[in-house]
Protein backbone atom coordinates (compact mmCIF):
# COMPACT_ATOMS: atom_id res chain seq x y z
CA UNK A 1 0.00 0.00 0.00
CA UNK A 2 1.37 3.39 -0.95
CA UNK A 3 1.30 6.43 1.31
CA UNK A 4 -1.22 8.00 -1.03
CA UNK A 5 -3.75 5.16 -0.89
CA UNK A 6 -3.22 5.01 2.85
CA UNK A 7 -4.17 8.66 3.11
CA UNK A 8 -7.20 8.25 0.89
CA UNK A 9 -8.53 4.90 2.10
CA UNK A 10 -7.41 4.55 5.70
CA UNK A 11 -7.04 8.00 7.24
CA UNK A 12 -10.72 9.02 6.88
CA UNK A 13 -11.65 6.49 9.56
CA UNK A 14 -9.96 8.81 12.07
CA UNK A 15 -13.17 10.38 13.42
CA UNK A 16 -14.70 7.00 14.17
CA UNK A 17 -11.51 5.86 15.88
CA UNK A 18 -11.43 9.09 17.86
CA UNK A 19 -15.04 8.77 19.06
CA UNK A 20 -14.40 5.16 20.07
CA UNK A 21 -11.17 6.00 21.91
CA UNK A 22 -12.77 9.00 23.57
CA UNK A 23 -15.69 6.89 24.73
CA UNK A 24 -13.27 4.50 26.40
CA UNK A 25 -10.78 6.98 27.80
CA UNK A 26 -13.04 10.01 28.39
CA UNK A 27 -10.09 12.21 27.56
CA UNK A 28 -9.79 13.91 24.19
CA UNK A 29 -6.05 14.42 24.33
CA UNK A 30 -5.28 10.79 25.11
CA UNK A 31 -7.85 9.68 22.55
CA UNK A 32 -6.06 11.72 19.88
CA UNK A 33 -2.73 10.14 20.79
CA UNK A 34 -4.27 6.69 20.55
CA UNK A 35 -5.71 7.43 17.10
CA UNK A 36 -2.30 8.60 15.91
CA UNK A 37 -0.65 5.46 17.29
CA UNK A 38 -3.31 3.33 15.61
CA UNK A 39 -2.44 4.78 12.21
CA UNK A 40 1.27 4.21 12.72
CA UNK A 41 0.58 0.58 13.58
CA UNK A 42 -1.68 0.21 10.55
CA UNK A 43 1.05 1.65 8.35
CA UNK A 44 3.64 -0.76 9.71
CA UNK A 45 1.26 -3.57 8.72
CA UNK A 46 0.42 -2.01 5.34
CA UNK A 47 1.56 -5.05 3.36
CA UNK A 48 -0.89 -7.33 5.15
CA UNK A 49 -3.88 -5.00 5.29
CA UNK A 50 -5.53 -6.65 2.28
CA UNK A 51 -5.86 -9.88 4.28
CA UNK A 52 -8.36 -8.29 6.64
CA UNK A 53 -11.93 -8.28 5.43
CA UNK A 54 -12.41 -4.81 6.87
CA UNK A 55 -9.56 -2.41 7.50
CA UNK A 56 -11.92 -0.26 9.55
CA UNK A 57 -12.75 -3.13 11.91
CA UNK A 58 -9.06 -3.95 12.21
CA UNK A 59 -8.27 -0.30 12.98
CA UNK A 60 -11.00 -0.25 15.64
CA UNK A 61 -9.53 -3.38 17.23
CA UNK A 62 -6.09 -1.77 17.42
CA UNK A 63 -7.62 1.36 18.96
CA UNK A 64 -9.53 -0.73 21.47
CA UNK A 65 -6.41 -2.64 22.53
CA UNK A 66 -4.36 0.53 22.84
CA UNK A 67 -7.09 2.14 24.97
CA UNK A 68 -7.35 -0.87 27.25
CA UNK A 69 -3.56 -0.87 27.67
CA UNK A 70 -3.69 2.81 28.50
CA UNK A 71 -6.46 2.31 31.06
CA UNK A 72 -4.55 -0.56 32.65
CA UNK A 73 -1.32 1.44 32.85
CA UNK A 74 -2.89 4.39 34.61
CA UNK A 75 -5.43 2.58 36.69
CA UNK A 76 -3.70 3.64 39.88
CA UNK A 77 -2.82 7.13 38.84
CA UNK A 78 -4.53 9.70 41.00
CA UNK A 79 -5.01 12.20 38.20
CA UNK A 80 -7.35 9.94 36.28
CA UNK A 81 -10.43 11.23 38.03
CA UNK A 82 -9.71 14.86 37.24
CA UNK A 83 -8.90 14.05 33.62
CA UNK A 84 -12.14 12.16 33.33
CA UNK A 85 -14.19 14.98 34.71
CA UNK A 86 -12.65 17.38 32.27
CA UNK A 87 -13.51 15.05 29.45
CA UNK A 88 -17.14 14.77 30.38
CA UNK A 89 -17.91 18.46 30.51
CA UNK A 90 -15.93 19.65 27.51
CA UNK A 91 -16.05 18.98 23.80
CA UNK A 92 -19.78 18.94 23.34
CA UNK A 93 -21.25 20.58 20.28
CA UNK A 94 -23.89 22.32 22.36
CA UNK A 95 -22.28 24.36 25.07
CA UNK A 96 -24.30 26.15 27.76
CA UNK A 97 -27.69 25.14 26.49
CA UNK A 98 -30.40 22.92 27.84
CA UNK A 99 -29.64 20.41 25.13
CA UNK A 100 -25.99 20.41 26.18
CA UNK A 101 -27.17 19.68 29.69
CA UNK A 102 -29.11 16.65 28.50
CA UNK A 103 -26.23 15.57 26.31
CA UNK A 104 -23.81 15.68 29.19
CA UNK A 105 -26.17 13.88 31.53
CA UNK A 106 -26.66 10.98 29.13
CA UNK A 107 -22.96 10.97 28.36
CA UNK A 108 -22.21 10.70 32.04
CA UNK A 109 -24.55 7.74 32.35
CA UNK A 110 -23.17 5.94 29.30
CA UNK A 111 -19.62 6.59 30.44
CA UNK A 112 -20.40 5.04 33.82
CA UNK A 113 -21.22 1.70 32.19
CA UNK A 114 -18.62 -1.09 32.37
CA UNK A 115 -16.03 -0.82 29.56
CA UNK A 116 -17.33 -3.70 27.49
CA UNK A 117 -20.93 -2.53 27.55
CA UNK A 118 -19.82 1.00 26.78
CA UNK A 119 -17.92 -0.16 23.72
CA UNK A 120 -20.83 -2.24 22.47
CA UNK A 121 -23.53 0.40 22.93
CA UNK A 122 -21.26 2.95 21.27
CA UNK A 123 -20.51 0.80 18.24
CA UNK A 124 -24.16 -0.12 17.81
CA UNK A 125 -26.14 2.99 18.72
CA UNK A 126 -23.69 5.68 17.69
CA UNK A 127 -21.76 4.11 14.81
CA UNK A 128 -24.52 1.79 13.61
CA UNK A 129 -22.37 -1.33 13.30
CA UNK A 130 -23.90 -4.71 12.52
CA UNK A 131 -23.47 -7.37 15.21
CA UNK A 132 -20.95 -9.25 13.05
CA UNK A 133 -18.84 -6.12 12.70
CA UNK A 134 -18.88 -5.52 16.46
CA UNK A 135 -17.91 -9.15 16.97
CA UNK A 136 -14.99 -8.55 14.61
CA UNK A 137 -13.80 -5.45 16.41
CA UNK A 138 -14.16 -6.74 19.95
CA UNK A 139 -13.19 -10.34 19.15
CA UNK A 140 -16.27 -11.72 20.87
CA UNK A 141 -19.20 -13.87 19.81
CA UNK A 142 -22.34 -12.27 18.40
CA UNK A 143 -24.33 -13.75 21.23
CA UNK A 144 -22.16 -12.21 23.95
CA UNK A 145 -22.51 -8.90 22.21
CA UNK A 146 -26.29 -9.15 22.05
CA UNK A 147 -26.50 -9.99 25.75
CA UNK A 148 -24.19 -7.15 26.76
CA UNK A 149 -25.91 -4.68 24.48
CA UNK A 150 -29.23 -5.51 26.09
CA UNK A 151 -27.72 -5.02 29.55
CA UNK A 152 -26.18 -1.71 28.54
CA UNK A 153 -29.43 -0.36 27.11
CA UNK A 154 -31.50 -1.44 30.11
CA UNK A 155 -29.00 -0.05 32.56
CA UNK A 156 -28.90 3.28 30.73
CA UNK A 157 -32.66 3.53 30.83
CA UNK A 158 -32.72 2.72 34.57
CA UNK A 159 -30.04 5.25 35.39
CA UNK A 160 -31.79 7.92 33.39
CA UNK A 161 -35.01 7.21 35.20
CA UNK A 162 -33.20 7.70 38.50
CA UNK A 163 -31.38 10.84 37.38
CA UNK A 164 -34.45 12.56 35.98
CA UNK A 165 -36.81 11.49 38.74
CA UNK A 166 -34.36 13.06 41.14
CA UNK A 167 -34.55 16.25 39.12
CA UNK A 168 -38.34 16.17 39.17
CA UNK A 169 -38.29 15.76 42.93
CA UNK A 170 -35.87 18.62 43.27
CA UNK A 171 -38.06 20.99 41.32
Amino acid sequence: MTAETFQIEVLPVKHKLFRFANRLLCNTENAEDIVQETFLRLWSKRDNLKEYKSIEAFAMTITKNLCLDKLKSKKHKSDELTERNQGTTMDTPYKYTERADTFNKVKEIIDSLPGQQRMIIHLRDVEGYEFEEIADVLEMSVNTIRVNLSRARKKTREKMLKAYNYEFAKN
Partner: protein
Amino acid sequence: MNLQKIEILIRKYESGETSMEEERALHDFFGNNEVPVHLANYKKMFSFFSASKNEMLNDEGFDERIMEAIGKEESTKSPRGKSYRLFPILGIAASILILISVGVYFQTRGPQIHFEDTYDNQELAYAETKKILMLVSGNMNTGSDELQNVAELENGFRELKKISNLKSGMKNMEKLSVLNKTKNLITTKK
Protein backbone atom coordinates in the same frame (compact mmCIF):
# COMPACT_ATOMS: atom_id res chain seq x y z
CA MET B 1 -45.51 5.07 13.03
CA ASN B 2 -47.92 4.80 15.95
CA LEU B 3 -46.96 4.74 19.61
CA GLN B 4 -47.94 1.14 20.12
CA LYS B 5 -45.54 0.02 17.45
CA ILE B 6 -42.83 2.20 18.95
CA GLU B 7 -43.32 0.65 22.36
CA ILE B 8 -43.01 -2.85 20.90
CA LEU B 9 -39.84 -1.78 19.11
CA ILE B 10 -38.47 -0.27 22.32
CA ARG B 11 -38.93 -3.54 24.14
CA LYS B 12 -37.21 -5.38 21.33
CA TYR B 13 -34.50 -2.74 21.36
CA GLU B 14 -33.81 -3.26 25.03
CA SER B 15 -33.42 -7.01 24.53
CA GLY B 16 -30.87 -6.36 21.81
CA GLU B 17 -33.09 -7.90 19.17
CA THR B 18 -33.89 -5.03 16.84
CA SER B 19 -32.45 -5.01 13.35
CA MET B 20 -30.41 -2.09 12.06
CA GLU B 21 -33.46 -0.99 10.07
CA GLU B 22 -35.75 -1.01 13.08
CA GLU B 23 -33.23 0.98 15.06
CA ARG B 24 -33.05 3.52 12.28
CA ALA B 25 -36.82 3.83 12.49
CA LEU B 26 -36.53 4.51 16.23
CA HIS B 27 -33.85 7.13 15.62
CA ASP B 28 -36.10 8.78 13.05
CA PHE B 29 -39.14 8.72 15.28
CA PHE B 30 -37.44 10.17 18.35
CA GLY B 31 -35.53 12.66 16.31
CA ASN B 32 -38.60 14.13 14.64
CA ASN B 33 -41.48 13.85 17.10
CA GLU B 34 -42.57 15.20 20.44
CA VAL B 35 -43.13 12.20 22.66
CA PRO B 36 -45.20 11.50 25.76
CA VAL B 37 -43.49 11.82 29.14
CA HIS B 38 -42.96 8.09 29.65
CA LEU B 39 -40.85 7.98 26.48
CA ALA B 40 -38.99 11.23 27.15
CA ASN B 41 -35.87 9.45 28.36
CA TYR B 42 -35.64 7.48 25.12
CA LYS B 43 -35.81 10.70 23.19
CA LYS B 44 -32.88 11.98 25.24
CA MET B 45 -30.97 8.78 24.66
CA PHE B 46 -31.46 8.79 20.92
CA SER B 47 -30.65 12.45 20.60
CA PHE B 48 -27.45 11.76 22.53
CA PHE B 49 -26.53 8.99 20.10
CA SER B 50 -27.18 11.21 17.08
CA ALA B 51 -25.22 14.10 18.55
CA SER B 52 -22.34 11.78 19.51
CA LYS B 53 -21.92 10.86 15.90
CA ASN B 54 -21.04 14.48 15.16
CA GLU B 55 -18.11 14.49 17.53
CA MET B 56 -15.00 14.85 15.44
CA LEU B 57 -11.33 14.59 15.95
CA ASN B 58 -9.71 17.99 16.05
CA ASP B 59 -7.86 17.21 12.85
CA GLU B 60 -6.08 20.45 12.15
CA GLY B 61 -2.74 19.28 10.84
CA PHE B 62 -3.54 15.71 11.88
CA ASP B 63 -3.20 14.14 8.43
CA GLU B 64 0.03 16.02 7.83
CA ARG B 65 1.47 14.79 11.11
CA ILE B 66 0.59 11.20 10.28
CA MET B 67 1.89 11.41 6.72
CA GLU B 68 5.11 12.95 7.94
CA ALA B 69 5.61 10.24 10.55
CA ILE B 70 4.89 7.64 7.90
CA GLY B 71 7.40 9.22 5.50
CA LYS B 72 10.09 9.14 8.16
CA GLU B 73 9.47 5.51 8.87
CA GLU B 74 9.63 4.77 5.14
CA SER B 75 13.08 6.33 4.72
CA THR B 76 14.64 4.71 7.78
CA LYS B 77 13.28 1.34 6.82
CA SER B 78 15.62 0.71 3.90
CA PRO B 79 16.19 -2.97 3.09
CA ARG B 80 19.93 -2.55 3.62
CA GLY B 81 19.53 -1.37 7.19
CA LYS B 82 17.26 -4.26 7.89
CA SER B 83 19.63 -6.91 6.60
CA TYR B 84 22.44 -5.26 8.49
CA ARG B 85 20.60 -5.70 11.73
CA LEU B 86 19.81 -9.27 10.80
CA PHE B 87 23.44 -10.15 10.12
CA PRO B 88 24.78 -10.77 13.64
CA ILE B 89 21.73 -12.86 14.44
CA LEU B 90 22.30 -14.98 11.32
CA GLY B 91 25.97 -15.38 12.25
CA ILE B 92 25.13 -16.53 15.74
CA ALA B 93 22.50 -18.90 14.42
CA ALA B 94 24.94 -20.35 11.88
CA SER B 95 27.71 -20.92 14.44
CA ILE B 96 25.30 -22.59 16.82
CA LEU B 97 24.14 -24.82 13.98
CA ILE B 98 27.73 -25.76 13.12
CA LEU B 99 28.56 -26.53 16.77
CA ILE B 100 25.48 -28.67 17.12
CA SER B 101 26.12 -30.58 13.89
CA VAL B 102 29.77 -31.20 14.78
CA GLY B 103 28.70 -32.40 18.21
CA VAL B 104 26.02 -34.64 16.79
CA TYR B 105 28.49 -35.99 14.18
CA PHE B 106 31.03 -37.06 16.78
CA GLN B 107 28.40 -38.39 19.13
CA THR B 108 26.93 -40.66 16.49
CA ARG B 109 30.24 -41.35 14.71
CA GLY B 110 32.37 -41.91 17.83
CA PRO B 111 31.56 -45.52 18.68
CA GLN B 112 31.72 -46.60 15.02
CA ILE B 113 35.48 -45.87 14.63
CA HIS B 114 36.21 -48.46 17.26
CA PHE B 115 38.59 -51.08 15.68
CA GLU B 116 38.59 -54.69 16.65
CA ASP B 117 41.74 -56.85 16.80
CA THR B 118 41.95 -59.26 13.89
CA TYR B 119 45.05 -61.11 15.19
CA ASP B 120 45.49 -62.76 18.54
CA ASN B 121 49.27 -63.10 18.22
CA GLN B 122 51.01 -59.72 18.19
CA GLU B 123 54.18 -60.99 16.43
CA LEU B 124 52.17 -62.61 13.70
CA ALA B 125 50.34 -59.35 13.21
CA TYR B 126 53.66 -57.47 13.02
CA ALA B 127 55.08 -59.91 10.48
CA GLU B 128 51.93 -59.70 8.37
CA THR B 129 52.01 -55.89 8.43
CA LYS B 130 55.68 -55.86 7.46
CA LYS B 131 55.01 -58.26 4.57
CA ILE B 132 52.25 -56.00 3.24
CA LEU B 133 54.37 -52.86 3.58
CA MET B 134 57.28 -54.56 1.73
CA LEU B 135 54.91 -55.55 -1.05
CA VAL B 136 53.72 -51.97 -1.39
CA SER B 137 57.25 -50.51 -1.41
CA GLY B 138 58.42 -53.16 -3.94
CA ASN B 139 55.66 -52.21 -6.34
CA MET B 140 56.50 -48.59 -5.82
CA ASN B 141 60.14 -49.26 -6.86
CA THR B 142 59.21 -51.04 -10.09
CA GLY B 143 57.00 -48.07 -10.84
CA SER B 144 59.88 -45.62 -10.30
CA ASP B 145 62.18 -47.70 -12.60
CA GLU B 146 59.84 -46.98 -15.44
CA LEU B 147 60.14 -43.28 -14.63
CA GLN B 148 63.89 -43.35 -15.49
CA ASN B 149 63.00 -43.27 -19.19
CA VAL B 150 61.92 -39.71 -18.56
CA ALA B 151 65.62 -38.89 -17.88
CA GLU B 152 66.34 -39.72 -21.55
CA LEU B 153 64.40 -36.61 -22.41
CA GLU B 154 67.30 -34.59 -20.92
CA ASN B 155 69.73 -36.05 -23.50
CA GLY B 156 67.38 -35.01 -26.26
CA PHE B 157 67.40 -31.46 -24.94
CA ARG B 158 71.23 -31.46 -24.94
CA GLU B 159 71.26 -32.41 -28.61
CA LEU B 160 68.86 -29.61 -29.34
CA LYS B 161 71.26 -27.07 -27.82
CA LYS B 162 73.54 -27.57 -30.82
CA ILE B 163 71.02 -25.60 -32.83
CA SER B 164 72.28 -22.46 -31.01
CA ASN B 165 75.50 -22.82 -33.05
CA LEU B 166 73.39 -21.85 -36.04
CA LYS B 167 73.38 -18.32 -34.69
CA SER B 168 77.18 -17.90 -34.94
CA GLY B 169 77.09 -19.39 -38.47
CA MET B 170 74.51 -16.79 -39.43
CA LYS B 171 76.79 -14.04 -38.08
CA ASN B 172 79.60 -15.28 -40.30
CA MET B 173 77.25 -15.27 -43.25
CA GLU B 174 76.75 -11.53 -42.68
CA LYS B 175 80.36 -10.99 -43.77
CA LEU B 176 79.24 -12.02 -47.24
CA SER B 177 77.39 -8.70 -47.48
CA VAL B 178 80.81 -6.98 -47.68
CA LEU B 179 81.25 -8.81 -50.93
CA ASN B 180 78.09 -7.22 -52.17
CA LYS B 181 79.32 -3.70 -51.27
CA THR B 182 82.62 -4.13 -53.09
CA LYS B 183 80.72 -5.42 -56.07
CA ASN B 184 78.60 -2.25 -56.04
CA LEU B 185 81.70 -0.06 -55.78
CA ILE B 186 83.22 -1.76 -58.77
CA THR B 187 80.13 -1.36 -60.93
CA THR B 188 79.68 2.38 -60.12
CA LYS B 189 83.33 3.15 -60.89
CA LYS B 190 82.79 1.67 -64.29
